[in-house]
């Protein structure tokens, strides 16, 4: 019995149920324009974007240990690329979304080169400085409205689709597709050798290094992928808003504080965490948002409470208690010639 006679199995019983559930959910959501109200569609788009942003932040902080409080840099960057290309190059805004991802990935490389020099906590604040620099630079772009911002011209908006209803459907489907692609990519990344390297780094960076894992390159790959994904979501968010300004596009509260809250509540370092967290976040928001500042204050208190009492979040508790896993990410070794006796 040689080494070739084993294989690595990713799926478990719960993950098979999970994947089937997700497939069913996807079909239902894809058909939402035919059964949901307009306001529901808008809410769903918002939920999709937050699940995506939270999953990307979770990949960065929970798996690669790169705790960023500056991901609004890429939300804003993606959005500004969309507005710039759509207004000045006349490109259909829908097609600028992948371009925004690509350009942001390229920009993220020199940024990573700079901020990777900061260790641990200081890295976090370094990412914030970068976001501030992006915001201040965006405010200097006169043709895009400077500090006060700009709206997408009517001609550009009608280029997306003729009627408002078609536009809303299109944006909805793009949001759903983008979310599925991003989640799929994260699953693939975590199942690849990079995922194994990430787990090794998370558990013990020195040990990973001594086993030949290229720690810096692995982190760089995750940082750049996250930047690209975040920028595409940012572009989509502002395609729906149709208006952009530096303070909104680079808002630390909207695009980082809420996202961190979602991941902490749901469970850091687990793919299911951001999904659970987003559901909780939107339930709270729909019931308590009228409270304004008090609502944010409560979010802060809940986040601190969870971090102190249940640092693994809701899904961490569930997974530890019942051993559930909705995504096929586990690694079990089985004999190739069938299930073990």
């Amino acid at each position, binding site marked *: 019995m040689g080494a070739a006679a084993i294989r690595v199995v990713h799926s478990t019983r719960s993950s098979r149920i999970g994947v089937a559930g997700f497939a069913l959910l996807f079909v239902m959501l894809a058909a939402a324009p035919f059964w949901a109200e307009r306001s529901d569609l808008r809410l769903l788009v918002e939920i999709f974007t937050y699940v995506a942003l939270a999953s990307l932040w979770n990949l960065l902080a929970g798996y690669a240990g790169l705790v960023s409080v500056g991901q609004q840099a890429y939300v804003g960057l993606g959005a500004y690329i969309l507005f710039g290309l759509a207004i000045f190059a006349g490109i259909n805004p829908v097609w600028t979304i992948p371009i925004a991802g690509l350009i942001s990935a390229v920009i993220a490389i020199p940024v990573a080169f*700079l901020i990777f020099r900061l260790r641990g906590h*200081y890295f*976090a*604040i370094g990412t914030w*400085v970068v976001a501030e620099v992006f915001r201040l630079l965006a405010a*200097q772009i006169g043709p895009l409205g400077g500090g006060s911002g700009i709206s997408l011209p009517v001609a550009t908006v009608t280029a997306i689709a003729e009627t408002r209803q078609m536009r809303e459907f299109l944006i909805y489907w793009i949001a759903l597709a983008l979310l599925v692609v991003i989640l799929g990519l994260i699953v693939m990344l975590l199942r690849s050798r990079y995922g194994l390297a990430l787990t090794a780094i998370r558990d013990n960076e020195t040990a990973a290094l001594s086993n030949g894992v290229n720690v810096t390159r692995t982190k760089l790959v995750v940082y750049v992928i996250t930047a690209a994904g975040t920028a595409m979501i940012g572009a989509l968010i502002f395609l729906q808003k149709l208006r952009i300004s530096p303070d909104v596009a680079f808002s630390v*509260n909207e695009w980082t504080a809420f996202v961190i809250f979602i991941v902490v509540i749901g469970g850091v370092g687990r793919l299911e965490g951001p999904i659970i967290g987003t559901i909780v976040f939107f339930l709270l928001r729909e019931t308590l948002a009228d409270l304004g500042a008090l609502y944010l*204050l409560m979010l802060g208190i809940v986040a601190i409470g969870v971090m102190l009492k249940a*640092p693994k979040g809701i899904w961490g508790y569930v997974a530890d208690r019942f051993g559930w896993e909705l995504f096929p990410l586990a690694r079990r070794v089985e004999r190739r010639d069938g299930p073990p006796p």
Partner: protein
Amino acid sequence: MEWVNTIVQGILTGGLYAMFAAGLSLIFGVMRLVNIAHGDLIVLAAYVALVVTETLGINPLVSLAFVVPIMAIAGYVLQRTILNRTLGDDLLPPLLVTFGLSIIIQNALLEIFTADSRKLNAGPIETASIEVLPGISLGVLPLLQFVLAVAVIAAMQFLFYRTATGRAFRATSDDQPVSQLMGLDNRHVFALAMALSLAIVAIAGVLLAVRANFDPSIGPARLIFGFEAVIIGGLGSMWGTLAGGIILGVSQAIGAKIDPGWQLLAGHLVFLFILAIRPQGLFPKVQ
């Protein structure tokens, strides 16, 4: 002459930035914690000073006698009740808890004091100035602020290297288990460090509130200025932090002189430039 004035103003502002940085640097040095709520605590101190001056009808500079102990006690309690429980090998808990704290402070201030900007009135000292050279006059208040910053940093240097508390700080920073074996209570040492950090925050907050308008949302920017001063100066060096603050202040003053929109940007760009060419900072502590 105009440029000399700009640079001098920048240096004096740099003193304030060094004070933002000193509290941050102290905490990081002792317990490897970066307090994301640091800037919001500065703003909180400004509001505490506002309440004290309005209730007692005293000068803001006199109110320091109340604000400093209040903030120091708050720091001790904060560390003992919450922050000590987050310390460990994992980076995430302290970062996220202080981030949550930042949001709580901002929104609590917003709820109590609204978003209106406030300012503390220190009386005639605000407009007083002395002419040091023909054409260059220094405001008494900015000068006082700078002198206080230097005094705070000198006092911290003394405390760190000449007192028993400072020895406890350094021992805990070097090796926690061993310092515990030597009879130090780390939880108490950390709480003392946080108390000291917030005492400095109190001074910085009052000076900020006397110099400029403040509102609940300006905390994060103060955190970033302090952080940039720490990194420019070099980790672990008190006097380096002062130099970092001055470099940041001068960069911002020159940026603002060229174009008002470039004030903050110039400071950030100088920080990134130094990070690129000299990531250990200008005056790192010799190990």
